[in-house]
């Protein structure tokens, strides 16, 4: 295929050539970054929480009136008892919060009580001996809490646990040599002994600002006696919907002086997850839609301009055909022409894509784009260009040689 005659022709269509190249460049820049954002969001929202999500329900309960901590303790015990007796419920415990809830307590944890240089921040989960089996957490070392270890604390009481269970992520940060079990760490003025290590338990927060310690959670052996209590229920397989329907009524039947919102007082983990990652999913969908529409519009633009060129050059095509060019030659001519323009477009576009990524990194603390995304974008756009020009090029190849003898 002769490149020079194509270049000579393009010189006569500077504006059109430039417009197609520019469009391809801009599309590449945006689509690469959009794909990269989608990938990041999807990997963020598919992080495992460590909880056996399919079989866990959470009930958000608030005591009305101002029961004293002592009263709350007995109300809570009665509730957990009621919940355990509910058909379909396998296990239950009361806590302050649960993974992905968006609310809770975070402490610094380190090797000294003053906390001026904590090793990490850690989410604090109030737990008892039933927490691990209820959540379905996997204990990889050590032991669970014992019933006699569980303390009680009111809203702002002093938490000084003698024993704690930490996630593997936190254990490895505190003791990088892997010897965390049995060692002590400080979340209060008193040292706490790490008696167990669970494989994974995500923090309540999914925000990017807290991502750094999302896998650093600590279970403390306390019941929190405050007006707001979260009951975590483990349901027998397949009975999630049944339990969900009956649990609110069962608790109200036991005691009416409470508020469990009819709207979102009982939540499945699927709902909790959808809520927590709503903006991530939204962003991924939005970027996906924009990329698809963008590619479609770019393809349409190429089809439009190429058709115009073919229409303009019918006579020249006729002449070439009359002089012996085959249909295949004509088809090849337009495909090569498009490939040349697209190549210039994707070269400029790759630079633009990296530039846009740099700017996004600066503005929105995005990560650096992996080169694979740019390469993928280049391939997609080159194929798109060839695909888009195919129909006009085929039409051009069907121009009969007799066209040369007609005037316009």
């Amino acid at each position, binding site marked *: 295929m002769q490149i020079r005659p194509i270049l000579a022709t393009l010189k006569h269509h500077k*504006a*059109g050539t430039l*417009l*197609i190249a*520019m*469009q391809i460049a*801009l599309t590449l*820049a*945006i689509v690469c*970054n959009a794909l990269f*954002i989608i990938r990041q969001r999807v990997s963020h929202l598919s992080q495992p929480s460590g909880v056996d999500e399919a079989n866990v329900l959470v009930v958000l309960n*608030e*005591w*009305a*009136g*101002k029961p004293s901590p002592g009263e709350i303790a007995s109300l809570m015990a009665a509730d957990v008892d009621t919940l355990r007796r509910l058909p379909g419920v396998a296990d239950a415990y009361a806590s302050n919060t649960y993974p992905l809830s*968006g*609310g809770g307590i975070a402490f610094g944890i380190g090797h000294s009580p*003053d*906390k*001026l240089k904590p090793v990490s921040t850690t989410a604090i989960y109030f737990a008892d001996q039933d927490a691990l089996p209820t959540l379905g957490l996997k204990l990889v070392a050590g032991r669970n809490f014992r019933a006699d270890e569980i303390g009680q604390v009111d*809203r*702002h*009481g*002093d938490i000084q646990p003698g024993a704690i269970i930490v996630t593997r992520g936190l254990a490895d940060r505190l003791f990088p040599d892997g010897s965390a079990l049995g060692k002590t760490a400080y979340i*209060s*003025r008193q040292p706490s002994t790490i008696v167990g290590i669970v494989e994974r338990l995500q923090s309540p927060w999914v925000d990017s600002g807290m991502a750094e310690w999302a896998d650093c959670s600590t279970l403390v052996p306390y019941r929190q006696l405050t007006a*707001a209590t979260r009951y975590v229920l483990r349901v027998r397989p397949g009975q999630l919907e049944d339990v969900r329907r009956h649990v609110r009524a069962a608790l*109200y039947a036991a005691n*009416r*002086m*409470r*508020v469990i*919102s009819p709207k979102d007082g009982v939540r499945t983990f699927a709902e909790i997850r959808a809520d927590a990652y*709503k*903006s991530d*999913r*939204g*962003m991924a*969908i*939005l*970027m996906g839609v*924009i990329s698809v*529409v*963008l590619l479609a*519009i770019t393809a*349409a*633009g190429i*089809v*439009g*301009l190429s*058709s*115009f060129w073919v*229409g*303009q050059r019918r006579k020249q095509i006729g002449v070439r055909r009359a002089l012996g060019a085959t249909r295949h030659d004509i088809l090849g001519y337009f495909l090569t022409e498009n490939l040349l323009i697209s190549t210039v477009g994707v070269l400029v576009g790759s630079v633009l894509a990296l530039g*846009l990524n740099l700017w*996004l990194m600066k503005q*929105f*603390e995005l990560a650096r784009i992996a080169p694979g995304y740019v390469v993928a974008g280049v391939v997609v756009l080159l194929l798109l260009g060839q695909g888009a020009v195919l129909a006009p090029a085929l039409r051009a190849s069907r121009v009969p040689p007799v066209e040369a003898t007609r005037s*316009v």
Partner: protein
Amino acid sequence: MFAHYFELGLRSLRRNPALTALMVMAIGFGVAASMITYSVFRAVSGNPIPGKSSQLFIPQVDAWGPQQNLANNEPAEALGYIDAMALLRAHAAKRQTMLYQVQLAAMPDGNRDLPLTANGYAVTSDFFSMFDAPFRFGGGWSAQDDDARATDVVISGALNQKLFGGVNSVGRTVDFSGHDYRVVGVLDHWNPRPRFYDLFTGANSFADEPDIYMPFARALDLHMYTAGRNSCRGTISFTNWQAYTQSNCVWITSWVELDSPAEVTRYRDFLTHYAAGQQHAGRFDWAPNVRLRDVVQWMDYEKVVPPESRIALVVALGFFLICLVNTIGLLLAKFMRRAGEIGVRRALGATRGEIYEQYLIEAGTVGLAGGVLGLLLTALGVSGVGILFQPQIARLAHLDASLVGLTLVVAIAATVLAAFYPAWRAARVQPAWQLKSS
């Protein structure tokens, strides 16, 4: 002539239906994408109190010190009890309020057998006038009531509806969490979003309307711990309310109203002076480190606008740009196909200016068609925002007259702008050459 060219433009829409459809769709999608993301952006970045945002300031005093402060030695985003009480007593601004979140329950009475949650704020009397809260019945309480630790309460219209069926309930008594309160005022629907006055609690900045507002002093008397955010430094060692109030925990947001730059300077001096006094007294062993931001500065500092909506806006603008480049190409193709026709008109005496005008107006017609399509897509998209973003944000994004107007104007203006070059090319067509070749 405009009407005639406009009619020609409409007619030419039908001439190359495929090419025209491509252009209209490109413009429609481009405008719609930009407008949908813009409507979300507008909803989340709007000024929640436009009339007064430059008179309301949030004082911050560094009570943690350089070792424990936030990044860049920024002081805590709220005040602890000691500093809040000191600023409250000093009363150095015309109006000031202290606030924190409380969570109560309206206890059952004759008509209801289940308790209702009543979330809201403990505030001082100036709160309502500072933030222009609109009353349906009654009003706020007075400064004397603040001092007297009155058991007054202002409730939202929504709670009034639930408790009293929407009638004027001023003077009635409600039991909130075991204590009786007298209703002194009922608000109209009032829920500025984002909730600029309590960004410290953050996650709820687009949350539902609060149900109650009660006197700050009364809440402290009842040892009500904050239902919102609480942030402490070092190890926590308090075990009761008394020790909690003396700890370094911050949980109270303070606001002052300052009318002139002179007052702002004076208040800032007062804050610095206060911090210096604390240093002198030995409570702080660091130099005064205070902040006094107004509403807009505070919203910026707290990064209220979610990065999602900013990124989406940037991407949508890029998208629109590509649609425009696309439109330039397609218009060029559309116009140059009619080179012969232009040649005839030129030969018959039309000036270049007239050709230019005709094709710009024709482009405007395409823009209008694209705008109408864009409007439909925008309406569809805005109603679908809830699928993608938080429902609280989605509720704020809506199609109103200004958005409709903006969509059409942007579509037409952008298309006409895109047509400058193609129309110029059309106007430069050589009549002689065109006539000869046909």
